[in-house]
């Protein structure tokens, strides 16, 4: 479709365990800084300790009016903070005409876990009434809603939920809406604040949490480590960005989506491969054009083997020449925000010609036999890259990023 609009990334915002602004995240990501540490979680007289990747000392007041922040769950505060950064980073001046053409489409997996647990705790402790803001705080669309209110975007706004693929599904939908002209500019990404006693106990019961750190693709990996945070992208058409002289990070070149239709927790290489192949086809890219893949790379036994097989299925011999790394080794698995944090990593990789590392890598696994960039970032030409996200429930989403200009 030669007449189709091309969509570019002109702003980035990030609230993460390894940096609460783009510059810090950028520095720590490529220096292999690991944001994982043991944290105690309590609920009444119960207490437990898990290794997690927390956003430490987050101060919503830096980004949000204090009175408005009290209406928001932590995940919505993350969403607004990251969106505010991305919008400011883009340098865009919003006119009423542009505002009506501006969309907010963000992903979240659970959303307001903190609010849910605090509310039950209040009742369990003998209170007869919940906090009056319980419902507005716990709506999973609250992230998108508060971003739209904060930035004054009055075009289409909604939340996408597909577990760990939520943010990348949101980006794919946004790309399609911008191409087709439903909107002209958008904030997209994901936010999650899932480090709560109840969430951790739930993941613990699935027996897939690591007892120490996340070691994606290595023989001695021991499971996933939960994280939290948000990342947002400012998207607009190439034409509009060029017309206003905006700094363009990269092109959001294509997306692919699929469902495994197989198992609620075990992922399928065929489904992942279809999503990757779909993203390539949609972007008009060949396997030979891809230099880097930011993997889903959870550090679980099943994901890492499955993802390796899927990359081999799609890329054949080219797979040997692609750098594949998992940033979850540094900032953990932020569920509905994971694909957004990893998208910022992917965009920075393409912009800087620098592949972020897979940290904590211990010994090669014969079943994971690709180039995982262990231990240190690598300078290399990156013309185009994929960002993989595969959600529980077998919902897969992949986006392609291409160097601009």
């Amino acid at each position, binding site marked *: 479709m030669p007449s189709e609009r091309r969509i570019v990334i002109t702003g980035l915002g990030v609230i993460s365990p390894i940096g609460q602004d783009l510059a810090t995240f950028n520095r720590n990501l490529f220096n292999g800084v690991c944001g994982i540490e043991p944290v105690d979680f309590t609920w009444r007289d119960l207490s437990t300790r898990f290794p997690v990747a927390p956003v430490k000392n987050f101060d919503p007041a830096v980004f949000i009016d204090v009175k408005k922040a009290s209406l928001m769950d932590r995940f919505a505060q993350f969403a607004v903070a990251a969106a505010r950064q991305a919008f400011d980073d883009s340098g865009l001046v919003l006119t009423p005409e542009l505002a009506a053409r501006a969309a907010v489409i963000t992903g979240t997996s659970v959303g307001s876990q903190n609010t849910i647990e605090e509310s039950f705790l209040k009742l369990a402790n003998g209170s007869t009434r919940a906090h009056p803001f319980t419902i507005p705080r716990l709506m999973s669309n609250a992230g998108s809603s508060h971003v739209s209110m904060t930035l004054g975007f009055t075009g289409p706004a909604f939340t996408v939920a597909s577990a760990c693929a939520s943010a990348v599904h949101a980006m794919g939908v946004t790309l399609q809406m911008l191409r087709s002209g439903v909107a002209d500019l958008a904030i997209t990404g994901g936010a999650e604040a899932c480090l709560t006693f109840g969430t951790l106990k739930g993941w613990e019961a699935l027996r897939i949490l690591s007892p120490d750190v996340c070691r994606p693709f290595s023989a001695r990996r*021991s*499971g996933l480590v939960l994280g939290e945070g948000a990342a947002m992208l400012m998207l607009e058409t190439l034409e509009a960005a060029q017309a206003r002289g905006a700094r363009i990070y990269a092109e959001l070149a294509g997306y692919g989506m699929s469902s495994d239709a197989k*198992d*609620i927790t*075990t992922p399928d290489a065929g489904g992942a491969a279809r999503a990757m192949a779909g993203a390539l086809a949609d972007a008009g890219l060949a396997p030979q054009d891809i230099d880097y893949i930011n993997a889903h790379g959870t*550090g679980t*036994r*099943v994901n890492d083997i499955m993802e390796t097989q899927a990359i081999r299925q799609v890329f054949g011999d080219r797979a040997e020449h692609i750098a594949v790394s998992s940033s979850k080794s540094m900032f953990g698995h932020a569920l509905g925000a994971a694909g957004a944090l990893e998208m910022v990593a992917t965009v920075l990789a393409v912009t800087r010609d620098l592949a972020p590392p897979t940290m904590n890598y211990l010994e090669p696994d014969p079943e994971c036999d690709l180039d995982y960039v262990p231990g240190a970032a690598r300078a290399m030409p990156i013309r185009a890259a994929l960002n993989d996200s595969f959600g529980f429930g077998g919902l897969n989403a992949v986006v392609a990023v291409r160097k601009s200009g």
Partner: protein
Amino acid sequence: MSQLDEILDIMAKVSMVERSTLVPDAKISDLGITSLDMVEIICELEDKYGVELPYNANMNFQKFPTLGDVLDMIQENIAAAGKG
């Protein structure tokens, strides 16, 4: 009913496989017991016997190729906790 029978009954119920196929030499993968089934089985046994069973789907699944291997782990932990 012996403890082993109780454990096997729980395994059969949770994974919905024929109780008679649950013999120690059987490979777990051949029995049709999925990793999610195993997580559910372990959880039920922990509740029943009041013990913690060290099971991580990432690290341990391959260490228990046969049903006997996982039964040994379960019974050793129940005995060590003095809950038999």
